[in-house]
C-alpha cells in the first residue's frame, strides 16, 4: 500500500463524516441561536431519580402552580434537513469543547457506593444523579449546600449552574434517530410558600417543570407517576408505579434520563445462541449475542475491557473482572472509576490497550434496579440535608415557613432499566471482555465472553457516563 492509496481511501469516506467536519461550521454558528444537533443513537436507557422532602409536622400551606418547561425542538435528522442538522451539530461540538467533564472525584465516590450490593443487578446514572443533586444544591444553603457541592466537586454555585446548563444542552437530543432526554420537575405541596427567585433559576438552568397539589392524594401521586412514565417512555413503569408522596411531604424533586441508540454494527441475529451464564447464585441460560470484529482491548490490574460503538452516539463499555474477582472487588479498589474517567475523556490516555480481533459474546440483557439513595447519600457526606432542623432550605421558602416546617430529605430513590439486544441498547453500559489481567493478550485475537458477572457503562457522544451498572443476572 502506498500513501496515495491511503489518501484515496480517505477521499472515499462516508459523506456524513465529511459533512460533520466541514470547516465552515464556525461562521454558520455565529449566525444562529443556540440549538443542538439532533443526534442518532444506538442504545436506549432510562433512569429516574426521585427525591422526596418531608417535614417534622404536617403542613397545609398555600402553594402555587408553576408552568411546565418547554423542551427545545431539535432539527430532525432527515435528508432534507441535512444543512440545518449539521449546523446544530457544529454548535454542539463547540459547546462540548467548552464544557468541563464531570469530576473524577465525584465518580470515584458515587460509583462504588451505588453499585456495590447483594448479588443483584445494580445500575445507576452518574449524570442523572448529578442533575438531581445540583437541583438540591440550588434549594439549599450554608453547610447543607456545601456538603452537596463537595460531593459534586464543584466550588461554587455559579460554576455549577454553568456546568449543568452546558451538560444539559450537549446531552439533550431528540432528532428522530437518537434520543437522549433529560427531564426535571418539582412537586410542591398545596399552600406551600416558596421564593420565586429559586423557582425561576430551576426553570431556566435546570429545565424544571413545577407542579402543586395535595400531597398523599391518589390523583397527585398518579400525576407524578404519569410524568415519570412519559419522560422515560414507559420503560420504568413498574418502579414508577411504586412512587408515592406522603401527606406530610413538602415537596419532591424528580429527574429522569431516557436514552436510545443503535449499535454502529448490529449483532447478527443468526449467531445468537442459548448459552450458560454463571450468576453468583447458580448457572442461568441466557441469549448470548456474538460478534467478531477488529477493536480495542484494554486491561487493568484485575479486569479486561472493550467497547462497542453506538451509531452517531457514544459506546457501551464492557468490563469483565479477572477470574477470582467480582465486580464489587474491582469497584472497591477504585480502578473502575479511574478507568471510566480516563475512557470518557480520551481512550488514548489508557496505557494498557491495543488493537485486536475481538470475539465478543455478550448476553442480551434487560436489567433494572430500584436503589434507595438515602443511606448512600449519607455515606457520601450529605448529612445535614437528612436532619430536621439542621437541613438549610433558606433559598427555597420564607424564613417563617422554614421554622414551622423544618423540611429535610426523607426519601430518595433511583430507578434504572437498561436493555440490550442485537439492534442496540436501551440503557447504557460498557461491554466487558474476558481479559488476561495485567498483561497484554498473547496473540492477535481476544475472546471476550461475558458469561459471568460484569460491569457495563454507556457513554453519550460527548463521553459523559449516562449509565453504569453491574450485571449479575442478564
Amino acid at each position: 500500500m502506498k500513501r496515495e492509496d491511503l489518501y484515496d481511501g480517505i477521499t472515499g469516506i462516508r459523506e456524513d463524516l465529511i459533512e460533520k467536519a466541514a470547516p465552515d461550521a464556525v461562521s454558520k454558528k455565529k449566525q444562529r441561536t443556540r440549538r443542538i444537533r439532533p443526534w442518532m443513537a444506538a442504545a436506549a436507557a432510562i433512569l429516574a431519580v426521585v427525591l422526596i422532602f418531608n417535614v417534622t409536622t404536617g403542613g397545609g400551606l398555600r402553594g402555587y402552580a408553576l408552568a411546565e418547561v418547554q423542551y427545545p425542538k431539535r432539527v430532525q435528522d432527515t435528508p432534507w434537513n441535512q444543512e440545518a442538522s449539521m449546523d446544530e451539530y457544529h454548535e454542539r461540538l463547540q459547546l462540548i469543547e467548552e464544557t468541563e467533564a464531570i469530576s473524577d472525584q465525584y465518580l470515584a465516590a458515587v460509583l462504588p457506593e451505588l453499585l456495590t450490593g447483594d448479588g443483584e443487578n445494580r445500575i445507576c446514572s452518574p449524570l442523572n444523579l448529578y442533575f438531581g443533586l445540583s437541583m438540591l444544591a440550588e434549594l439549599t444553603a450554608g453547610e447543607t449546600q456545601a456538603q452537596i457541592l463537595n460531593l459534586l466537586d464543584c466550588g461554587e454555585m455559579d460554576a455549577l449552574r454553568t456546568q449543568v446548563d452546558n451538560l444539559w444542552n450537549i446531552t439533550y437530543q431528540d432528532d428522530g434517530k437518537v434520543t437522549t432526554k433529560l427531564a426535571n420537575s418539582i412537586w410542591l405541596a398545596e399552600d406551600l410558600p416558596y421564593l420565586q427567585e429559586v423557582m425561576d433559576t430551576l426553570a431556566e438552568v435546570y429545565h424544571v417543570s413545577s407542579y402543586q397539589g395535595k400531597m398523599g392524594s391518589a390523583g397527585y401521586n398518579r400525576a407524578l407517576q404519569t410524568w415519570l412514565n412519559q419522560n422515560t417512555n414507559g420503560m420504568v413503569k413498574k418502579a414508577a408505579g411504586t412512587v408515592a408522596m406522603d401527606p406530610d411531604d413538602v415537596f419532591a424533586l424528580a429527574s429522569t434520563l431516557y436514552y436510545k441508540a443503535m449499535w454502529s454494527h448490529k449483532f447478527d441475529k443468526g449467531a445468537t445462541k442459548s448459552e450458560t451464564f454463571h450468576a453468583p447464585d447458580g448457572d442461568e441460560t441466557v441469549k448470548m449475542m456474538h460478534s467478531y470484529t477488529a477493536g480495542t482491548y484494554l486491561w487493568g490490574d484485575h479486569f479486561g475491557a472493550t467497547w462497542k460503538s453506538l451509531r452517531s452516539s457514544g459506546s457501551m463499555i464492557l468490563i469483565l473482572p479477572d477470574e477470582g474477582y467480582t465486580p464489587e472487588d474491582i469497584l472497591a479498589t477504585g480502578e473502575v472509576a479511574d478507568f471510566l474517567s480516563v475512557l470518557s475523556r480520551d481512550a488514548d490516555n489508557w496505557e494498557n490497550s491495543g488493537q485486536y480481533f475481538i470475539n465478543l459474546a455478550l448476553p442480551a440483557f434487560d436489567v433494572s434496579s430500584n436503589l434507595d439513595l438515602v443511606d448512600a447519600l449519607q455515606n457520601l457526606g450529605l448529612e445535614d440535608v437528612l436532619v430536621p432542623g439542621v437541613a438549610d432550605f433558606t433559598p427555597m421558602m420564607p424564613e417563617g415557613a422554614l421554622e414551622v416546617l423544618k423540611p429535610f430529605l426523607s426519601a430518595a430513590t433511583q430507578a434504572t432499566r437498561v436493555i440490550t439486544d442485537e439492534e442496540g441498547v436501551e440503557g447504557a453500559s460498557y461491554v466487558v471482555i474476558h481479559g488476561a489481567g495485567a498483561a497484554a493478550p498473547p496473540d492477535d485475537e481476544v475472546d471476550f465472553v461475558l458469561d459471568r458477572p460484569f460491569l457495563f457503562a454507556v457513554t453519550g457522544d460527548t463521553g459523559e457516563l449516562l449509565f453504569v451498572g453491574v450485571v449479575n443476572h442478564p
Partner: protein
Amino acid sequence: MEDEEILELYFQRQESAIVETERKHGPYCRSIANNLLWDRRDVDECVADTWYAAWTRIPPDRPSHFRTFLGRIVRNLAVSRYRKNHAEKRGGGLEVLLSELEDCLPTGDVQETLEQKELAQLISDWLDGLPAADCVLFVRRYWYGEAVRDLAHSLGGTPNRVTKKLQRLRGGLRQRLEKEGVPLS
C-alpha cells in the same frame, strides 16, 4: 439557490449550472484545493477542472450530497496535479499531508490490493469508533487538508497539542489497518 435546483440545471444541460455551482460552492472547493496545493494558479485550474468534471458526470450522476461530491472531485484532481508537480519538483500542502499519512501505512503482512472502496469503508468504520471531536479533527486535517495552526485556532488547544493528537490518531489508524491485514477465519 438550493442544490436540488442547481442539479436540475445540470440535467437540463444549462450552462448556468456551473455559474450557480461556483457561486454557491466555489469558496468550499477553493479552500480544499488551496489547503492541498498552495499555489494560486494550480488552485484556479483545479477548481475550474472540478466544474468541468461535474458537468460531464451530471447526468447520469445525481449526487445526494452535492457539496461533498464536489469536494471529492477537488481532492482527486489535487492529487493528480500533485503527481504532475512532483515530477516537476514542485511540492505543496499535499506533500506534507502525504508524508504524515505515511505514519498510517501498515507494516508486515497486509493486503496490498485493498480496493479503494473497501479501504474507505474501513476508515469510515474506524472514524465511527472515535470520539466526535477526534473524528472531526482527523477529517478536517486529512480530508479538508486544513493546517494544524488553523485547526488549533478553530477547535481549541495549541498547535503542539493538535500535532500530538493527530500523531496518536494516525497510530490508531495504522493499528487498525494492520489488524485488517490479518485474514478473517
